[in-house]
């Protein structure tokens, strides 16, 4: 009983999306490296991943949802979701420049100037400039509005001093975006400015920090009278908080952790069940099924969100719902894999690496406790604590 068309919910993909998906699949089959690259949080792996970003860019597939003028393909977000599914299903490397292409890029498209878009987006798309994010400080973690890194105006520059910590990709990246306090009299969310800071500038010291896996995926960045030209401020000085919240919305919402990644992991988990599962172990079978269902639900939620965005709605604090869901799904999925591996779960493998990384999910991009506060305050509008 097939109906021809329906005005409202109709999940059948458009012909354009189907054709794009096929093109992506073919390209990836020909280009994805046959071996796993070294960890992007080592110097060697960083360089290998940068090369891969350049290859993707040459194939026209590094930033498919961006306008063509900046190196994208101009496809809509539904096709981007299809791209992500194909990308991870093909076993492609992780995205080295995710802070740039998924967080800063969309922020510049929405809040940047034409000059900033022209200057920063093309090399970001090409992998020639890799970005780190600088939000947290030693005394401003979950309480991000407690930022103390400050900048004073001097001629055509801001002069920045302070330090940023847990700077993702900070060890080897070329640039960092983040918030600094430009109004010394200001408190909390006011007086903060969104800045683009080159990590090779005079006065910048980068101290890599080893993560649980021993690699330096993040860093502490010390800023000592670093000169940042006025043109490297995004939006108005003092209006940085709301721009940072837009960036964080991309991070928690659709872009940073797209469904394709978890769907691919769920398929690997099913393969592991078929290989290692004991017949009649209905407990593990149920857990694997749950993991697949959650990954699939995440995919549907993303399509639902994108479809509303395409009709002009904004993703607001609801992004926090998504962040809680994907971070918990990722842990659950990996814990299930460890159960299947039994004694072998102790041995270093892609599953144990993935498990350790999944444990960071409820912490980065704003802890899940902060997300629950945001949901309560801004979605449910409960009284403030």
């Amino acid at each position: 009983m097939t109906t021809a068309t329906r005005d409202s919910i109709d999940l059948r993909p458009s012909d354009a999306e189907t054709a794009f998906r096929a093109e992506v699949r073919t390209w990836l089959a020909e280009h994805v490296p046959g071996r796993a690259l070294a960890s992007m949080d080592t110097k060697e792996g960083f360089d290998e991943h940068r090369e891969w970003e350049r290859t993707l860019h040459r194939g026209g597939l590094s930033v498919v949802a961006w306008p063509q003028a900046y190196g994208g393909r101009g496809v809509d977000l539904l096709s981007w979701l299809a791209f992500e599914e194909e990308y991870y299903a093909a076993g492609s490397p992780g995205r080295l420049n995710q802070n740039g292409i998924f967080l800063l890029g969309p922020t510049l498209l929405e809040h940047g100037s034409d000059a900033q878009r022209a200057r920063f987006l093309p090399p970001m798309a090409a992998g020639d400039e890799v970005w780190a994010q600088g939000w947290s400080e030693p005394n401003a973690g979950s309480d991000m509005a407690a930022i103390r890194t400050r900048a004073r105006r001097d001629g055509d520059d801001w002069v920045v001093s302070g330090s940023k910590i847990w700077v993702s990709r900070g060890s080897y990246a070329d640039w960092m975006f983040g918030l600094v306090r430009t109004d010394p009299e200001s408190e909390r969310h006011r007086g903060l400015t969104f800045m683009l800071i080159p990590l090779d500038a005079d006065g910048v010291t980068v101290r890599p920090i080893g993560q649980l896996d021993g690699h330096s995926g993040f860093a502490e960045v010390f800023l000592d009278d670093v000169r940042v030209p006025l043109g490297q401020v995004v939006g108005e000085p003092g209006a940085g908080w709301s721009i940072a919240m837009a960036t964080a919305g991309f991070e928690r919402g659709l872009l940073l952790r797209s469904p394709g990644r978890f769907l691919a992991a769920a398929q690997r988990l099913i393969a592991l069940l078929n290989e290692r599962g004991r017949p009649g172990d209905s407990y593990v079978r149920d857990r694997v099924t749950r993991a697949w269902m959650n990954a699939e639900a995440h995919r549907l939620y993303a399509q639902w969100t994108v479809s509303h965005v395409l009709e002009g709605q904004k993703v607001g604090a609801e992004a926090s719902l998504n962040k809680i869901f994907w971070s918990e799904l990722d842990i659950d999925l990996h814990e299930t894999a460890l159960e299947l591996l039994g004694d072998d779960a102790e041995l270093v493998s892609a599953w144990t690496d993935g498990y350790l990384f999944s444990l960071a999910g409820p912490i980065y991009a704003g802890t899940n406790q902060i997300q629950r506060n945001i949901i309560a305050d801004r979605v449910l509008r409960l009284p403030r604590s």
Partner: protein
Amino acid sequence: MRFTFDEDQREYQRVLRDYLAQHCPTTELRALWDDERGRSPQRWAQLAELGAIGLAAPTALGGMGLDDVALLLPLEEAGRAALPEPLGAVAAVAVPLLSELAVGDEWVERAAAGTAMPIVGFGAGPRVADAHVADVLLLGAGSELYAVDPTDVVLTRRLSLDPTRRLFDVAWQPGAGGELLAAGNGVVDALKRAQDRSAVALAAELLGVTAQLLDMAEAYARERQQFGKPIGAFQAIKHLLADALVGLAFARPVVYRAAASLADGAATASRDASMAKAFASDAATAAGKAALQIHGATGYTWEHDLSIWLKRAQALSLASGDARFHRERVARAVLTAA
């Protein structure tokens, strides 16, 4: 591809919500608990007048000619109001079954008009909700579908934990009477789809039940004061509600997708229906527990209306297969295909 409701559907949802807010108050729900029949013929007639029962009936038979997707928001509103009448069983299961097999036109026409309730039962000796108010029981077994007059069979009432529910064991097996409506392989498939439709209809209703539970908990958290402030200002309460909202937010697209799969005759329709029932059941039971915890002892009382939705969440999450049952169906579809 489009994954949003259109303005007409949202407007119709508002119409039904307003109607039910006025005509399905909790005082009446409670009054019906003590009534053997427990159903309001007036309200059913008015729902038919509003077009809700014939949404999926062919236009030639007085319906709207729409599909499973059109029933989603009306069923959510039924859940939000804890509607006692069997909107899902008639409008989303019986009517599409008869329409699909192109039999029993008279029943479809009368159902859409609100003058008869056809209700479906599956297998031998089926347990059927609302069998006592059915004008015809559509009983399917194997490859045969029978129309059975409810007065010709013994109905044994079974008490549900939800006092609004009316459950009956129907003493019937194939060959034990009734008019043979249809037979053949097409009936086997149509009955499978009817079971999937039953799961999706309950899932949609559970979304509304969940939304209502969260609304009540949220309102109470705002109003109830302890330690000199509203309890909703405490993180322990906030986080309970936030987690329950995550459950509802992620169940919604899952349920909506399942209806689209049924309407489109997708190969994955059964899997998607089971996924919908599992998600909606889990979201509703979690929201029920959170809402009760937030209400504290007040919510545990017979007098407080929270129990209406708490019990509805529990009953409907168990009906037509609980979450575990449906996950196992998903497992059979997904794990072997890999």
